[in-house]
């Protein structure tokens, strides 16, 4: 039995081409016959190559090859069903027990995994690597807080260059990055849970373990057992046959080298069978997957809804931030009231697109001047992505990017004209209005469509500008029998000329 690496998602990191067959939660792992608190509740994964046991404290894996036999004992009354697995402990697998450790950094609440190589006799905890995100080495005992001032100033590490009082465990100054003379913090013992194991000497050298027992507290034992049996049969067939490295993953690009024609035939045969099974199964899988997912997302959204009205104090800022980040990464339909405080790096990204957009609009052929200073967001989306042609930007991101214009003091702003979301450049809009006035000067009584043809602006843009000019009393209209026509507003000049006569 060896420990394995876990993916960020808490699943065993599978080898190339390893496909998972079954997974069940609510399982307790007995080492030999005795229970261990660390493995009270976890998930068991079965793949075509190994049996894994994972919970938030540890990740153990047992290659199917080293399993001699698996026995099933049904659950009676309170005793839950169990599967006992006999292991060939002939030492074929000299492993170094590697426990994998997961700890949440109290500063930035990033989940780190640390490797603690513990070979048989001494437990040597290689110096814990600092938290990947914020670089703080996090002995559990230090109650870190962002504001260094809180802890005694003598305790803080003042930065030699900018005299900023840093948090004692900061490797370099938060402000100017000057490396602080890092006082070598004695590697503290890992979190208490690990100590528990050390105390009650439960920790075995797994390589000597001859049998483990999986106790199914939440049912699902029978299907898991039958799949385990069939997986073991496959492995034994493979052992007996030419030890063929069957390539089961679809993505042939990463296939392992094949051996001879015979192998090739069998491979393509198997693959065709595999893909058709998968394709038909896929949708089935998809449905079952989505059912499960639906529940999770629903819970997430209910919580998001409650967090929307939670007063600031109830949910700590960092956890809310982390949840938001996760939710937005999965683009959960998080209520807008929450997503307004979109995490900072999202803003950074939107500002990136906004700058790119501004550049795009500065090119003469794209300038808003051509369209009368106004462009609908959908049209912008089409022409901008047409120009990008690769790595297209989603409508949702484009909208957020356009909203960033005001922060970059670009002369373009997001507004709504006649119910349509548009971007408008004040300068070009005024220029367009002057242009329309000039056309009306030359041909008074033009209709919207005539103005649109002469100015090359869209009819929507022309009517928007006419509305503005009318509000400013620069233009007035004539409801001719069939069509609405526009004139330069000359009423005032009539009044003045009238006064000269009657004065």
């Amino acid at each position, binding site marked *: 039995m060896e420990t394995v690496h876990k993916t960020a998602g808490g699943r065993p990191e599978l080898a190339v081409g390893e496909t998972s067959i079954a997974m069940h939660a609510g399982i307790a792992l007995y080492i030999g016959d005795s229970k261990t608190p660390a493995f009270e509740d976890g998930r068991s994964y079965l793949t075509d190559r190994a049996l894994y046991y994972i919970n938030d404290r540890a990740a153990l894996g047992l290659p199917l090859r080293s399993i001699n036999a698996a026995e099933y004992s049904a659950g009676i009354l309170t005793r839950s069903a169990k599967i006992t697995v006999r292991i060939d402990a002939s030492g074929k697998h000299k492993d170094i027990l590697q426990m994998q450790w997961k700890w949440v950094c109290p500063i930035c609440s990033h989940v780190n995994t640390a490797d603690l190589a513990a070979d048989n006799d001494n437990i040597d905890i290689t110096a814990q690597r600092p938290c990947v995100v914020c670089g703080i080495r996090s002995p559990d005992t230090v109650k870190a807080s962002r504001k260094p001032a809180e802890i005694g100033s003598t305790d803080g590490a003042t930065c030699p260059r900018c005299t900023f009082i840093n948090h004692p465990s900061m490797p370099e100054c938060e402000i100017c990055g000057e490396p602080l003379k890092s006082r070598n913090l004695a590697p503290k013992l890992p979190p208490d849970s690990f100590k528990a194991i050390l105390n009650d000497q439960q920790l075995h050298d797994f390589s000597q373990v001859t049998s483990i027992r999986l106790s199914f507290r939440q049912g699902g034992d029978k299907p898991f057992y039958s799949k385990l049996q069939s997986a073991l049969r496959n492995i034994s067939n493979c052992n007996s046959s030419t030890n063929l490295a069957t390539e089961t993953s679809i993505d042939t690009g990463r296939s392992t080298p094949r051996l001879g024609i015979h192998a090739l035939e069998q491979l393509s045969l198997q693959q065709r069978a595999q893909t058709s099974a998968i394709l038909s199964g896929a949708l089935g899988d998809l449905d079952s997957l989505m059912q499960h997912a639906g529940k999770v997302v629903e819970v997430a959204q209910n919580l998001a809804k409650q967090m929307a009205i939670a007063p600031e104090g109830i949910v700590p800022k960092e956890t809310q931030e982390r949840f938001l980040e996760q939710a937005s990464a999965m683009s959960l339909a998080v209520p807008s009231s929450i997503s307004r405080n979109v995490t900072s790096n999202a803003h950074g990204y939107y500002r990136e697109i906004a700058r790119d957009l501004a550049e795009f609009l500065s090119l003469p052929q794209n300038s808003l001047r051509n369209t009368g200073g106004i462009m609908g967001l959908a049209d912008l989306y089409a022409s901008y992505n047409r120009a990008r042609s690769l790595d297209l930007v989603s409508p949702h991101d484009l909208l957020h990017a356009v909203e960033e214009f005001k922060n970059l003091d670009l002369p373009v702003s997001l507004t709504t004209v006649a119910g349509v979301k548009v971007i408008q450049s004040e300068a070009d809009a005024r220029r367009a209005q002057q242009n329309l006035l000039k056309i009306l000067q030359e041909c008074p009584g033009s209709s919207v469509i005539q103005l649109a043809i002469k100015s090359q602006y869209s009819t929507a843009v022309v009517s928007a500008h006419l509305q503005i000019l009318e509000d400013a009393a620069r233009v007035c*209209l*004539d409801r001719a029998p069939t069509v609405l026509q526009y004139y330069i507003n*000359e009423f005032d000049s*009539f009044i003045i000329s009238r006064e000269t006569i009657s004065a």
Partner: protein
Amino acid sequence: MSYQYPKAYSYPPFFTKQPNPQTWQSQLQLWKDFIIDWSKFHRAYRLNPTSDIDLFHNQTIDRRLSPQVIDEILKYMTDNGSGEFDSKEFVIYWKSPEEWAESLYKWIESTGQISRVLTFKELKNAPDFNDIDQFVLRKAIQVLSKRGKAQIMKVDNVEAGVKFF
């Protein structure tokens, strides 16, 4: 010498009520001035808003004011003291009752007819009063009586004439 129509009269938007309030105000004013100017030239005292509407219809550019807009203009003129309705017809004050009253009193004084009673008919001998509209004349007299410079004399409750002081 035929009447000189103002430039606005051949400006098509003149016949469309302008949505912009500011423009509409100047439009109202222009219509008022035009109507006064036109009726002064033609010494027309009365206007029937439903029948004589050729004033509001420019054949050459085929544009006309809609009845509602005509009403709004006449209401504007009433508020503005440049005319008022005498039942169905609209009386246009291209010369205001005050102006009429003043020139009437000046004539009474210059012809030494203070404290004499004159019939309505005799008053029409005043300069420029020959074709004065009865309604307007009466308004002028009211102005003078309010100023205590004239009084309508009644004989067994029938208006006989006016006495000036």
